[in-house]
């Protein structure tokens, strides 16, 4: 393939702005896939992705397009994850591209995430083609969208392509623009091999399949390769391209996008961002930008049925095969038994893993409240990173604690600015900037503790702005913060699974909400049960679950005995599904409910 006839591009879009549908149209138009084969949205192949309308794992597809100038082009579409949790993966996908379609919903306009990804794209010097999608909708306002593209992004509104991925309008214009407005890949095919891994997946028959873009040099079937970060070497058994099914080939040169199979057993051998080079003639330095997967959010996951611990381990290990960013280690809780402390890229990643464990592996799980990673500075100068409230140090060894902050960019209609600023304030936000993007759209920038975003920030943001505000955030670093460990005591005994690390000013409110909620959920017992929230030895909130007053069967004669016995035995079964904490029986829901506390 001649390098000048290759175009590598991605699509940047907010959720629901039509990225996958547009990709489908491009596939259809270029004949990569027939209409009949389409189950709609070919790129999002995971069930969950389709249901949630988001892309979790990046994918790639090779389109062959005969342009109006009669030349044939190879267009590699690299799909990017569409969520802030996966911003590192996004950045690696963008590096593999030379241009991007910026898709904006004609009715919704530009959203925070679109901008965040666009800035990333511009940082990597990508050529941008703005596409205004869904122009066929009655609510479409392409002029407003054009204006926003000009005002907010600074692109020439004349360059915008009006399209409807649903009807196919504008598809040819887009393909022509890709050919003419995106630069061909650079990179010398004679240099030693350097290929960027932008995704990988595990296939139970073939091992790990790594997706890459050759930046320099070439890769051939049978060649010995080396992963520059992990330093592992493999022999290539197959390379190929996506059409969209994997189609083997002999050689891929600089600028091309493809896959490699090389008896790799584990996705951790082929981490996103790593550089593939030749084992015989290695490049001197790796491609820039690699960083190992860094979990930002942790939670404990425990099987409801304690005997399912082994199954949970197996399931996690299977998921890990496909997901290098998932980390986990065994954990025990006196309340919940044996389970795992799991680390995720973010909240969505956590939800996805939980959902897959429950749906694909049939596990019934209790997850503890998500926690960020705190840096604990001890008086002896040591620094511990902790995510589990159980590891919170006693105060006499504690010097100070740092928690992760993010820079949050919120784009919203100006009418909601006041209420959203209040929200950011409540969430311990530090105001950084406010900018009128257009006469009616505002960009708010706050530094916020990541833990607050984990709580319920996003839900609140959406509800208080009636769904109009959009959020993007990036990690800023750890900052010192006045944090305490909030414990919950049932009948005077602490329940480890209900402990949380919170800001001192939030401890009272949260303690009160938690105790109230637990009072509501925990059924009355035979004894009065005090529910207390404490910080250190100080009780900051208290509720009392009154003792059960009356539960008596009036009659039990000959005909009732069997029925009554079975009823009591059923209660015994129900008891097994309760967690016995000391003398208190706590239903599983209690552990779930504390996650859904609304502040």
């Amino acid at each position: 393939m001649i390098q000048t006839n290759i175009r590598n591009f991605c699509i940047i879009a907010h959720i629901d702005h039509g990225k996958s549908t547009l990709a489908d149209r491009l596939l259809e138009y270029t004949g990569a896939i027939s209409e009949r084969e389409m189950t709609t949205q070919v790129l999002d192949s995971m069930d969950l992705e389709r249901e949630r309308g988001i892309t979790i794992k990046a994918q790639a597809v090779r389109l062959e397009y005969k342009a109006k100038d009669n030349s044939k082009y190879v267009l590699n579409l690299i799909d990017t994850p569409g969520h802030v949790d996966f911003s590192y993966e996004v950045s690696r996908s963008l590096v593999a591209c030379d241009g991007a379609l910026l898709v904006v919903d004609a009715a919704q306009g530009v959203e925070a995430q679109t901008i965040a990804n666009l800035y990333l794209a511009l940082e990597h010097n990508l050529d941008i083609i703005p596409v205004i999608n869904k122009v066929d909708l009655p609510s479409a306002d392409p002029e407003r969208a054009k204006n926003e593209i000009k005002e907010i992004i600074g692109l020439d509104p004349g360059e915008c392509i009006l399209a409807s991925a649903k009807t196919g309008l504008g598809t040819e214009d887009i393909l022509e623009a890709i050919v003419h407005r995106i630069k061909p890949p650079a990179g010398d095919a004679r240099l030693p091999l350097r290929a960027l891994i932008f995704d990988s997946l595990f296939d139970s028959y073939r091992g790990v399949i790594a997706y890459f873009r050759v930046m320099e040099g070439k890769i051939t079937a049978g060649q010995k390769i080396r992963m520059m970060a992990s330093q592992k070497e493999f022999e290539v058994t197959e390379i190929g391209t996506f059409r969209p099914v994997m189609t083997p080939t002999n050689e891929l040169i600089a600028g091309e996008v493809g896959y490699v199979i090389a008896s790799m057993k584990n996705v951790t051998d082929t981490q996103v961002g790593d550089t593939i080079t030749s084992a015989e003639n290695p490049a001197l330095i790796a491609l820039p930008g690699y960083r190992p997967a860094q979990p930002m959010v942790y939670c404990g996951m425990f099987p409801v049925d304690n005997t399912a611990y082994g199954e949970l381990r197996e399931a996690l290990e299977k998921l890990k095969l496909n997901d290098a960013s998932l980390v986990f280690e065994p954990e025990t809780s006196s309340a919940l038994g044996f389970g795992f402390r799991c680390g995720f890229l973010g909240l969505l990643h956590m939800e996805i893993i939980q959902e897959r464990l429950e749906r694909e592996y049939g596990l019934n799980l209790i997850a503890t409240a998500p926690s960020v990673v705190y840096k604990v500075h001890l008086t002896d100068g040591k620094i511990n990173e902790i995510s589990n409230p159980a590891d919170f140090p006693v105060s006499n060894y504690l010097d100070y604690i740092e928690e992760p902050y993010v820079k949050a960019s919120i784009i919203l209609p100006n009418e909601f600015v006041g209420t959203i600023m209040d929200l950011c304030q409540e969430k311990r936000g530090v105001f950084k900037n406010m900018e009128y993007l257009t006469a009616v759209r505002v960009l708010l920038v706050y530094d916020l503790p990541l833990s607050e975003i984990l709580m319920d920030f996003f839900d609140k943001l959406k509800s208080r702005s009636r769904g109009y505000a959009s959020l993007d955030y990036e990690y800023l670093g750890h900052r010192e913060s006045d944090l305490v460990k909030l414990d919950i005591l049932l009948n005077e005994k602490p329940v480890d699974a209900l402990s949380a690390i919170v800001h001192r000013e939030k401890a009272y409110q949260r303690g009160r909400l938690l105790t109230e909620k637990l009072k509501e959920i925990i059924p009355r017992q035979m004894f009065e049960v005090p529910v207390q929230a404490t910080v250190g030895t100080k009780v900051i909130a208290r509720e009392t679950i009154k003792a059960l007053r009356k539960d008596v069967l009036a009659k039990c004669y000959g005909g009732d005995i069997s029925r009554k016995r079975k009823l009591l035995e059923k209660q015994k079964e129900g008891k097994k599904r309760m967690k016995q904490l000391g003398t208190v029986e706590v239903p599983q829901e209690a552990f779930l409910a504390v996650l859904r506390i609304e502040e």
Partner: protein
Amino acid sequence: MSKELSLYFHFPFCKRKCYYCDFNSFSGFDQLMPDYIHALLAEIKFYLPQSGKMIKSIYFGGGTPSYFPVNSLIEILKFVTTHFLVPGKAEITLEANPGTINVEDLIQLQEAGFNRLSIGLQATQNDLLRRIGRIHSAQEFYDIFELARETGFQNIGVDLIFGLPGQKLEHWQNTLHSVTEVGPEHISAYCLQLEPGTRLHHQVSLKEVSLPPEEEVVEMMEFTMVYLQERGYEQYEISNYAKTGYKSVHNLGYWLGHDYLGLGAGAASTRLGQRWANIKDPKDYIENLKKGISVVAERESIDKHTAMIEAVMLGLRLRSGINLQRFYDKYAVDLILKTQKDLESLLNADLIEINDGTLRLTYKGILTSNKIIATLIANL
């Protein structure tokens, strides 16, 4: 194995079904009553091989047995006394509704050998009685009670219910006062159970009527336990009180795990480690017996472990409690050891007590007896 046996006859017909009742009983099927008596006689004949057993007690329950013509009730009793060993001291009870019985009936019943009446009164306030669908007034009860005394019934029990819709603590106190003034030998004071499928359940779910708040019902129950003991009635079971020597022999049999045969539609029997229950529908019951087919609808083996669980469940209903040594001798299980973890907290909370080698509920524990029993048997 006990040589003694109790017999229960079920009469699933009522003039009108009370709104709270979920028993196997029907109104509007009066035309079936003669056939039903024949069916009962046919069923008891199956048990003639058991006729060598001593009959300790006989109980005619319902439904409303007194709704049947007296001669048919007597016919059944005669059949039993003729074919089984029924000692003169055997307790023979008839459940009676004050609205379905008169003085002639009482004379005949007494002469035929019925020596105990169990009268369903429920409350002494007519508006409360109407609200739950009772067919009689308080006055009808007083009249029948007096007549029963005059005709020679020296053992009379009265059934009462608290927690009725519209009932206040004061109503209940008045009911207990009036009834103890009349002075039956036995009082059953039941806490109303709202059962799914009943008219009352429907009314409550539609908010047409409302039940007294839990706290008030608790007060009623606490009052009952104190008041009736003061008036000379010993609480010998969660809901049952008797003057000395007048505990219900028949019902004690259930709680002590003795064998019994139940005859009639829906009646249950327990005998030699087996439990079975008859078809509930009186029509099917009659038809099967006409054809000579079994009327057993369900059957269950009561193995030793099940028997042990029932012994705990029933034994704790009794104020006499569970004798731990006898329990150990019978089931080879040390109840204290086996339930130790929960027992301690129950003892500390004063819900249960162990005295003289006997485990029993405290008065406080009676109020939450279901939960306590469930907790204990979960260890078994």
